[in-house]
């Protein structure tokens, strides 16, 4: 009887109107729990960092070394950066790229790690009350982290780019050697799989950006990941390209939601 009841509930969740009702109830519960989540999240963040630090000590050390090297390079590049930035600004203004066309964004704080052990989602402290809604891209300072999946009045759930249901149209290369592809999430701690490549293959170290061509789901030009491996099979028939997200999705605390909806 109870198994049948469970299956009935599952079936109802797939039914349009009832599903909406269930979504409303779920959103209400999220709103009710969000103040508790915020309070405890703020208190537990240091504890979580200790956990993360203990389990990833080696990675933290190598990340630190990498950042020190990067800082040196950045300082050296700072002088020429100003000039390049002026040039880039002029070019982008001409190209009218949506990402840099001052899309309004809403800052938000991550209040909860994934609620499910099997899907890669984050809970943020902004919802429909702050103008945040489903399908809006979510970025951090370094690039794309995901898309809003569900919003209640005061919170939203963000589906991360590493989630297995995430699929993003991407572009890479230079003006003379550009390619397009699809970047699929492969789960926790796994790189994105770059597939259906049209044009030349990307090279290791190259950054992939949103292409803006996948039904306009994302504005073009948001950095997503850096290519970490390009392997072609012995017969040369298949090529596997992996790209590591630019943003460390495990430790992210602040994000921005772009008020952008898929273009028709």
């Amino acid at each position, binding site marked *: *009887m*109870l*198994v049948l*009841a*469970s*299956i*009935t*509930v*599952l*079936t*109802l*969740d*797939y039914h349009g109107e009832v599903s909406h009702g*269930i979504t409303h*109830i*779920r959103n209400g*519960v*999220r709103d009710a*729990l969000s103040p*508790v*989540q915020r*309070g*405890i*999240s703020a208190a*537990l*963040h240091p*504890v*979580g960092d200790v*956990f*993360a630090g203990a*389990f990833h000590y080696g990675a933290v050390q190598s990340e630190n070394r990498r950042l020190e090297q990067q800082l040196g390079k950045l300082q050296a590049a700072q002088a020429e950066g100003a000039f390049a930035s002026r040039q880039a600004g002029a070019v982008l203004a001409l190209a009218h790229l949506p990402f840099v066309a001052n899309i309004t964004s809403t800052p938000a704080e991550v209040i*909860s*790690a*994934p*609620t*499910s*052990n*099997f*899907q*890669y*989602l984050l809970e943020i402290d902004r919802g429909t009350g702050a103008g945040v809604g489903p399908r809006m891209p979510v970025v951090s300072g370094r690039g794309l982290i995901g898309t809003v*999946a*569900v919003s209640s009045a005061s919170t939203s*759930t963000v589906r991360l780019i590493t*989630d*297995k*249901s995430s699929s993003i149209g991407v572009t890479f290369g230079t003006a003379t050697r550009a390619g397009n592809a699809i970047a699929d999430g492969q*789960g*926790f*701690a796994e790189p994105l799989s770059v597939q259906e490549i049209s044009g030349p293959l990307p090279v290791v170290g190259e950054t992939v950006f949103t292409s803006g061509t996948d039904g306009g789901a994302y504005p073009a030009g948001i950095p997503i990941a850096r290519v970490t491996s390009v392997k072609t099979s012995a017969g040369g028939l298949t090529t596997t390209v992996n790209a590591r997200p630019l943003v460390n999705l*495990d430790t992210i605390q602040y994000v921005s939601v772009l008020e952008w909806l898929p273009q028709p």
Partner: protein
Amino acid sequence: MAPPAVNLRSWSRLGAVALLALVVQVAVLDQLVVHGAHPEVLVLLAAAAGAVAGSQRGAMIGFVIGLVADLVLPTPYGLSALTYVLVAFAAGGVRSLPGDRDGRSLQVATCIAGAAGGTLCFAVLGDLLGQPGMLDRQGAVVVLVVTVGALVLAFPSVAALRWVVRGADRSVTGHAIPSGGSATR
């Protein structure tokens, strides 16, 4: 002797326990992420329900806890309910074993095994329903983390479920809610 029915007192205790567990899960346990996975207390409660209350009453309690868990999960509504019914029913099987069926150590051990099995069952059922990323390498990590978490959380979970079931045992008025068979025999 037949076990007492699930009555109003135990329903209210179950509601309080489920609500508290939900808050603990969302506000505390979800933050304790180890290699992409966190401990789960609600599946433990379902297993504890079976171990403490037996298969049939446990399944009913598991169903309610599953519906509560589904409120905060992104998976289809009812997936946890179905999983927890099966987990509680299976965990209740230990009560048919010879020996001290009410011994706390047996109940705690059942609870831990139930949490591991329940997590695996959730992944399999989710995969059958077409949910992405349910059965992959990370699944093994999730089962491990949930099991290690269960080592810590099993004692309070069993204690909480014993308290819920005592509500039925001590009932004087006996506002019994049919529990699906054995309780009303």
